[in-house]
């Protein structure tokens, strides 16, 4: 069966420090991968999605970037964190292909606090 791992679960970082959140999926190949940020009252905001290695689409201009160095690995990064980057970050995957008819499966999330 497929599983998704996201870490760390919580993170406290000072302003200006770098960020690296990692997400890996097991049990499938070439999944579609997503990074979301969940903020109170704003729901889940899609940040990045990827349909394959090295293929990243950015939805919201911001202080963050994403990379997919391996088929089942999706990394969310920042060179210098801002206070406004605080939030709850969720990684998700869905089966490969562009024909849809698939649901997305979510990781447990990372609570990031920038101080």
């Amino acid at each position: 069966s497929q599983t998704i791992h996201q870490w760390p679960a919580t993170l406290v970082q000072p302003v200006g420090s770098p960020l690296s959140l990692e997400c890996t999926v097991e049990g499938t190949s070439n999944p579609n991968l997503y990074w979301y940020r969940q903020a109170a009252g704003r729901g889940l905001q899609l940040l990045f999605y990827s349909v394959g290695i090295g293929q990243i689409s950015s939805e919201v201009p911001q202080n963050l970037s994403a990379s997919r160095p391996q088929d089942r690995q999706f990394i969310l990064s920042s060179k210098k964190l801002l206070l406004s980057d605080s939030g709850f970050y969720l990684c998700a995957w869905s089966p490969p292909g562009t024909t849809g008819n698939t649901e997305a499966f979510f990781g447990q999330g990372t609570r990031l606090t920038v101080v």
Partner: protein
Amino acid sequence: AQSVSQHNHHVILSEAASLELGCNYSYGGTVNLFWYVQYPGQHLQLLLKYFSGDPLVKGIKGFEAEFIKSKFSFNLRKPSVQWSDTAEYFCAVRGLSGGYNKLIFGAGTRLAVHP
């Protein structure tokens, strides 16, 4: 561009009351539609989904949703809510035209059910 609108941000009900949560989307082509639920302290999980066929779909825990294509709506319903239905509910849409795989969420509706 894809977008999802959930009409109610907060809903308070008594047990046994009926529930209807509104969801409208904006997308010109074929779509997949989803409702996800997030119980307090837990990760997002799928409540129900619509891909094609019967526009009335049934999900877990007695929930159902009706896809009305002419209204671009996918409202969630439950005839009689329970205290355990207290959670945040998210409507989501994936547009299928042009090779898109983006899964876009609404802002969410917080449901509180009082005994």
